[in-house]
C-alpha cells in the first residue's frame, strides 16, 4: 500500500465516521434552529434507536422469515435490503415518537422559562435515558447484528467495505430527503418560518407547537438511523453508546454553524476526517483532544461557526 492509497483509505474511514456525526448533528442543529435549545438528550435518542434496531433485528428476524416463505431469495441482496430498510424504519418511527413525547413532557412546559432551565432539563433527560437503559438492558456491551455479510471492494487501491458504502449512501439519501422536506414542503416552510420568528409565524396562522413537534420527530428519526448505521459498522451497542458520538455531533453542529443544516453535515465530515487523520499520524490517543481543539480554534476565529452568518442577537 503506497502513501496515496493510505491517504485514500483514511479519507474513506473519516468520511464514513463523519457521515454518522453529520446525521446526529442534524438533529442538534434543527432543534437549536427552531427553539434555541441544545438538546443534550439527542445522543441518547441515538442510543435508543440503535437498541430498537437491535431488538427488532434479533427477536423478529425478518430476513429468515422472508427466506422461509420464499427460499429462492436466500442470500440475495434484496433480502438484506428489505431487512435493513425495515430495521432502520422501525427504529426511526419509534424514536420520532419518543422525540415528540420528550419534547411535549420535558421541554414544552419550559418554553417560556429561562434557556438555562431547558438546557438543564435536557441534561437530565439524557442521564435518565442512560440509566434507564442500564437498568433494563444491562451495562454489558452487546454484539450488534452486522445486517450485511462482510464484503470488501477495491477503490483506487484502498479497501471500502459494503457497510461503509451503506453508511455514506444512507446519509446522503437522508440528507437529500431532509433538504426536500425543509425547502419544498409546506411543513418545511412552516419550520423555517418558526425558526425565523415564532410570534410572527403564529400570527400568520402557523401551528407553532405542531411544527416544533415535527422538528423533534425528524431530528430523532435521523439520530435513530445514525445509531443503527454506527452500531452495525462498529459491531456493538451499549447504554453509554450515545455519549461520545453525541458530544462529537454537538461539536460538528457548532463547528458548521449551529442552526444551519448544511453546516451540520460539513462539521460532521470535518470532524470525522480530522479524527481519522490524527489517528493515521499515530496520535490516536489524543484524537478527541484534537477534535475539541479544532472547535475552540474555529470558535475563536468565527464564533458563529464555518457557515454561520453574523446575526445580531434580538433584544
Amino acid at each position, binding site marked *: *500500500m503506497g502513501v496515496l492509497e493510505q491517504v485514500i483509505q483514511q479519507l474513506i474511514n473519516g468520511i464514513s465516521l463523519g457521515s454518522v456525526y453529520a446525521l446526529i448533528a442534524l438533529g442538534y442543529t434543527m432543534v437549536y434552529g427552531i427553539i434555541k435549545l441544545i438538546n443534550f438528550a439527542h445522543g441518547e435518542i441515538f442510543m435508543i434507536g440503535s437498541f430498537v434496531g437491535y431488538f427488532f433485528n434479533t427477536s423478529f428476524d425478518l430476513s429468515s422469515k422472508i427466506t422461509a416463505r420464499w427460499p429462492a431469495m436466500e442470500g440475495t441482496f434484496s433480502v438484506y435490503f428489505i431487512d435493513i430498510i425495515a430495521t432502520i424504519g422501525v427504529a426511526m418511527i419509534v424514536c420520532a415518537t419518543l422525540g415528540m413525547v420528550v419534547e411535549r413532557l420535558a421541554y414544552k412546559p419550559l418554553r417560556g422559562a429561562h434557556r438555562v432551565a431547558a438546557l438543564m432539563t435536557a441534561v437530565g433527560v439524557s442521564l435518565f435515558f442512560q440509566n434507564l437503559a442500564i437498568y433494563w438492558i444491562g451495562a454489558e456491551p452487546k*454484539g450488534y447484528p452486522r445486517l450485511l455479510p462482510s464484503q470488501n471492494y477495491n477503490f483506487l487501491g484502498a479497501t471500502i467495505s459494503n457497510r461503509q458504502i451503506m453508511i455514506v449512501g444512507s446519509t446522503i439519501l437522508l440528507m437529500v430527503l431532509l433538504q426536500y422536506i425543509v425547502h419544498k414542503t409546506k411543513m418545511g416552510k412552516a419550520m423555517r418560518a418558526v425558526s425565523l420568528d415564532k410570534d410572527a409565524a403564529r400570527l400568520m396562522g402557523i401551528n407553532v407547537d405542531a411544527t416544533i413537534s415535527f422538528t423533534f420527530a425528524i431530528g430523532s428519526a435521523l439520530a435513530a438511523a445514525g445509531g443503527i448505521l454506527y452500531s452495525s459498522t*462498529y459491531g456493538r451497542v451499549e447504554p453509554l453508546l450515545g455519549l461520545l458520538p453525541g458530544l462529537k455531533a454537538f461539536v460538528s453542529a457548532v463547528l458548521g454553524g449551529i442552526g444551519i443544516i448544511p453546516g451540520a453535515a460539513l462539521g460532521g465530515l470535518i470532524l470525522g476526517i480530522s479524527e481519522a487523520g490524527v*489517528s*493515521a499520524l499515530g496520535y490516536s490517543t489524543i484524537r478527541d483532544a484534537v477534535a475539541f481543539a479544532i472547535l475552540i480554534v474555529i470558535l475563536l476565529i468565527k464564533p458563529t461557526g464555518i457557515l454561520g452568518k453574523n446575526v445580531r442577537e434580538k433584544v
Partner: protein
Amino acid sequence: MRKKLWITMLVLAMIFAVALTGCGGGQEESDEIVIGAVFGMTGDIATFGQSSKEAIEMRVKEVNESGGVLGRQVRVVFEDNKSLATETALAVEKLIEQDEVVAIIGAIASTNTLAGAPIAQDAGVPMISGTSTAESVTEVGDYIFRACFIDPFQGRVAAQFALQNLEAKTAAVLTDVGSDYSMGLRDVFVENFTAGGGKVVQTSEFVVQDTDFNAVLTNVKAQNPDVVYVPAYYNSVGLILAQAADLGIDATFIGTDGWDSPTLFELAGDAANGHFFTNHYSPDADVPEVQDFIAAYGAAYNGKTPDALAALGYDAFNMTLDAITRAGSTDGEAIRDALAETAGFVGVCGTITMDEKRNPIKSAVMIEIKDQKQVYNATVSPE
C-alpha cells in the same frame, strides 16, 4: 422545631450505632472463617468477575458440606469493584475493617489489584489474585500472592509461538494505553520478538473507550505484518478483529488471556476465527483435575463451561484454603508463610510452586479460535 430536629437526629444516630455494633458483634461470636473476594461484577470486564464468583461459590458449598476447614465453616464476602481501581481500594478497606476477613481473593485486572494490594499489605492480610498478571503486583509486599503466571511469561510465549509455530518475520503491536497490563505485555513481546530475530514494524496505541479502529488498522495494513499482537481486553479486541476483517487485513492476530470471554465472539463473530491467544488453561486438556472441575461447574450452573477466570479464581481460593489448613490457624502471618511455602499444589491450571517473589511457576497454553470456539493448540512450559 429545632428541638424536634435534634431529637430526630439523635434517634437516627442511635439506630445507626446499634446497627453497626450489631453487625460487628455477630461476626466475632461466630466460628466461621471469613474470606473476602473483590471482583468486577459490573463494568468493563464484568463477565470475568461473574465467572470467578461462580467458581468460588461452588467450592465454598463443597468445602462446607464436607466439614469445612480446620473444622470451621467457610464464608466468602463478595465485593463488586465495578472494574475500577478506586472502588477496589474501597472494597479492600471495607473487607478488612468491617468484615474482618482473614484473606482476600482478587482483584482481576492488575490495575485494580495494584490499587488494593498496599492496603492489604499494611493491614497484614494476605491477598491472592487469581488473574493479575502484571509483574509489579506481587512486588507490593510479602502478603501479596497470585495463582497465575506473570506478564513477561505470556509475552514471551506469544513471541516464541509467533516466531516458531507461525514462522512470523514481522509483527505489529496494538496496545491499550490506559492499562498497565497491556503496556507491560507490549514491552516484553517486543523485546522477545526482536531478540528472536523478528522485526516489529508498527506499534499503535488506543484507549479503551474507542469504537472506531479503522484509522489505526489502516496503518497496520500498510505495513502488512505477519502477525499483530493485541494484548488487551475482549471488549476492544472484539471490535478490532471485526474491523480488521472489514479492512481486509489477513495477518494472524495473537492475544492474551484478556481475550477469554464469550463476548469476544458476540462482537467479532466469524472475524475472530483463525487467531490465537495465550491462556492459563484449556477445557480441552485431558487432565483429571480439569475434567473434574468442568463436570462440577457444569452441574452447578446448567452445563456451562467454566472459562479461565473461573478456573483461576478457583485455584486462588483453593490455594488459600490449603494454606490455612497447613498453617493450622487463621492468623495473617501464618497464612502468609504457608502460602509462600506452597509447592507442588495441584490446581486446575497446572501444578503450582511459588518462587521467592511469590509468583507461581507453571505452564501456559496456546488457544486457537476455530468456528467461534476455543481450541487447544499447544502447551508452553517455562524455561
